[in-house]
């Protein structure tokens, strides 16, 4: 069965019918989702106080009876090293916390009922989330982690859509300084670079953020759990680009804004992963960065084809070297507090 995950709860045919009819009612469902959420809150409170639902069922007598829960101590008999390390793992709380529904069955909370595996000692008789299709692996984790802040961005995250499962980054059994996931900047960068090779190579260029030096990590700028900004960018102060967390002097608001900073962000002019151009600029000289927008062209008519900032703030003789670095004079290019032409 691919969906939903818990093998102990087969989906009734009636429920399947209801699902199909629900597709037709999707728009209405979305509109009242908030109401359902409120109802869910009420229901959840009630359920939270109930005993665990995942208790093993009464064992049917047939030989091909479904696997049942045997408890983590049974697992310990063979997997003692993992069991010992797991006791210092944050997930150990699943073993001890009645509220989560898997008290004394922590191993089986992810691996599923283990009675058959305990009898046969065959890997084929136990579920290994790491080897499942990513979407199923995620559902295993989401049994507990579904309603958490990380889930907000998950649905918009390219990681989830690209079938990168939780276990691609999180080591579930591991104990030690890095715990479930890399915490130190070099380890985080190594983890991300193992897939994002092209991005990591950019950090070998001379002008870059200081990731290879261990002063920063990928998650300083990107939220691996996702977000609604492009590139899964982090936020600062609620809803502003994460760049301003370190570059607070560029945040504003300014009396005179430079529109691209607000409309398309720092990447309009900068290559944040690294560049051969000073100050991580997107072009080799400042004037080209500016002239690509401020092209001196006359404004076109409103509507299609109209773009902002085509007319520059001033006309200069670009044959003169004096005018070839626009930011020498238009120095407040990120926004000015007092001058419309960003001169001061």
């Amino acid at each position, binding site marked *: *069965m691919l*969906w939903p995950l818990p093998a102990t709860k087969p989906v009734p045919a009636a429920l399947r019918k209801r*699902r*199909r009819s*629900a597709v037709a009612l999707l728009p209405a469902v979305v509109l009242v*989702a908030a109401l*359902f*959420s409120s109802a*869910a809150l009420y229901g959840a409170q009630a*359920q939270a106080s109930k005993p665990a639902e995942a208790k093993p069922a009464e064992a049917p007598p047939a030989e091909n009876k479904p696997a049942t829960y045997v408890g983590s101590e049974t697992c310990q*008999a063979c997997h003692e090293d993992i069991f010992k390390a797991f006791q210092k793992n944050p997930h150990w709380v699943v073993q001890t916390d009645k509220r989560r529904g898997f008290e004394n069955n922590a191993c089986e909370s992810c691996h599923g009922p283990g009675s058959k595996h305990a009898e046969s000692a065959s890997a084929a008789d136990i579920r290994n989330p790491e080897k499942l*299709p*990513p*979407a199923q692996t995620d559902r295993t984790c989401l049994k507990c982690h*579904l*309603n958490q802040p990380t889930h*907000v961005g998950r649905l918009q995250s390219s990681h989830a*859509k*690209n*079938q990168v499962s939780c276990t691609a980054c999180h080591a579930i059994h591991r104990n030690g300084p890095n715990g479930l996931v890399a915490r*130190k900047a070099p380890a985080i960068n190594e983890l991300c670079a193992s897939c994002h090779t*092209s991005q*990591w*190579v*950019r950090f070998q260029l*001379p002008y870059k953020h*200081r990731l290879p*030096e*261990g002063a920063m990590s990928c998650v300083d700028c990107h939220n691996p759990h996702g977000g*609604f900004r492009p590139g899964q960018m982090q936020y600062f*102060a*609620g809803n502003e680009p994460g760049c301003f967390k*370190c570059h*607070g*002097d560029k945040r*504003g*608001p300014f*009396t*005179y*804004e430079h529109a691209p900073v607000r*409309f398309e962000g720092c990447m309009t002019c900068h290559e944040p992963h690294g560049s051969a151009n*000073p100050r991580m600029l997107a072009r080799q000289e400042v004037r080209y960065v500016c002239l*690509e927008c401020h*092209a*001196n*062209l006359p404004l076109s008519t409103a509507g*299609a084809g*109209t773009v*902002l*900032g*085509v007319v520059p*703030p001033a*006309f200069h003789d670009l044959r003169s*070297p*004096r005018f*070839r670095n626009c930011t*020498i*004079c238009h120095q407040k290019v990120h926004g000015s*507090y*007092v001058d419309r032409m960003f001169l001061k």
Partner: protein
Amino acid sequence: MRALLVLFLSLPLVGQQAAPKPEAQPAPAAQPKPEEKAAPAEAKPAAPSEQQAASPVPAGEPVISGSVDFGYRWVSNVGGSLDAYRSIVNLGEGPKLTGLDFTVQDPKHRLFDRLDVRGYNWGDDPYTTAHISARKRSLYDFNFDYRNLAYFNYLPSFADPLLDTSKGIFLNERSYDLRRKMSDFELDLLPGNWITPYLAYSRDAGSGHGVTTFVLDATNEYPVPDLLRDETNTYRGGVRVELRRFHATLEEGGTTFKDDQQVYNNLTQNYGNRTTPYAGQQLYLGSLLQAYGIRGDGTYSKVLVTANPFAWMDVYGQFLYSQPNNDVHYNQYNTGNFALLSSLLLYNGQQDLATATAKMPHTAGSLGFEVRPLRRVRVIESWSTDRLHSAGIGQLAEQFLLPNSASLSQVAPLSSRLVMNYNQQQVDVLVDVTSRLTLRGGHRYVWGDGQDLAPVLSPNAGGLESGELRRQVGLAGASFHSGQKFSFNVDFEGASSDRDYFRISLYDYQRARARARYQAFGTLALSADFSILNNQNPSQGIHYDFLSRQNSVSALWTPAGGKRVTVLAEYSRSTLRSDINYLAGPYFATESSFYRDNSHAGTVLADFALPAYAGMIPKISLGGSYMVSSGSRPTSYYQPLAKLALPLCKNLFWTAEWRYYGFGEAYYLYEGFRAHIFMTGLRLTK
């Protein structure tokens, strides 16, 4: 800072005194390999837990583990440009604490269950960091991060590459020698509980000096010293409520900001003084004091919600609102001989006073859901919006002191408006065709509008200019996994726009990305990455043509489980082409901006375990990285390195490291540099 350094050094020593020195160091719990996880009892490795059971540390005493690295660094005489070296590398000489990393675990769970302390690159290094985390289960989780980063930027070619080909301009205008210090504190209370309150504070401060320009009415500019000091404080607190079918995070925060930049001139002969007469007179700068006093504050609110009202449906939403405000107090006083081009006026002094206020209410939100109508089908729908309005208003009062002791005063209003409304709707359908293959397709519609002040020289100067955004994007992709041996992922986006904000914005574009990972053998893992972006804007007067490609391959070879040799190799080839036309002043001749960047970059790092002696294994690492590019700014950058870790006794290593930095630019030869860096030190582990 030194006190912190001493404190960090002494903490593990205190810990070491507390615990009696073991006769035999127990090995840390080994991380089981994936293939061992399901292995039966007979096949499992020797149980480290037995070694743990034999630990001589008295039960109940805190267990400390970690390491300290310290040593001395020498930097050879930097050949070539020291300014470029400092702008790119900036490592200095002297004693350094390169790494401190220890963990304290308290079995009695008194103040904490676990305390982690890390510190790297202390001792006046350009990238100093520290981290402290402490947690006690179900009670608190505390994290502190500190960074102190140097930002030195003094590149002759940046200011004006052609003014003086021997070394740029006299004084490099727009240069910086700054330090940015960032601290983050976060405290979660009752972690793991259904309700978790949290508090956090962040501070980002920059200070230092530099060289900037004092610009006067387009007639002249003067390089002048610049003192910079800014500070942003962020306070936030909130609560997370996590229930079985519902989660909500409510957060309220605030920021304060100040920026006290000061520009001055104390040179009697400023390099920017005009040597050719203007209106028959020499223009020069005498004294200058320019001071910015910016004070800002703001509040923000954040609401995140997730719910799964049905087993087949997940819903999420977020609402974010912020309103930062800045109050501006600007003061400028300068004397000398200047010209006011707009009034054809010569004057000897000027005093400017400006006050202004800027506000930027900013609302963002998103709403979406995932439904699973069929066993193998998921539908993800999302809407998001980002709406920002910025307005500034104020007044600038100017007084000019004329040569005949008269004065001229004028008052000008400061007023601006910027509006940005962005919206996006996206639907993705993911189909698990088989347990190994997932296909996905979707559609994204992006639309928005914006307004900004029209440029001074535009026909509607004084008014607003408007832009619109309309973009249809088709999405497709596939993922294939063959167990843990092979995985392949491909993404494609194809877009068509009819309106866009800027000339170089994404318009009609195709973007594709493919990644593959292959575990060829148990000892060899290969991966490859390919991406391409082709963006065209054929609109009249724009004709933008952009194409970038990146191809990367990497390999990790770990024969015999990496016991003796580990080799990591990466190679990337990237090409970028950007063509766009513009009109160049003063005659508005059509010119083209051709940007080309074709680069090869690679990294190789090989770790070797040398023959053991006295039960200890010395290790050596060799490798480095290189980058060679051609095109608009041909550059080469080499960073080879060699490291040696020689165990002296069980917990003590002698470490030595050599690095070389070689940087060169074909067009700006004066910016090249070469430097050898040696470092030696000791590494203590426990």
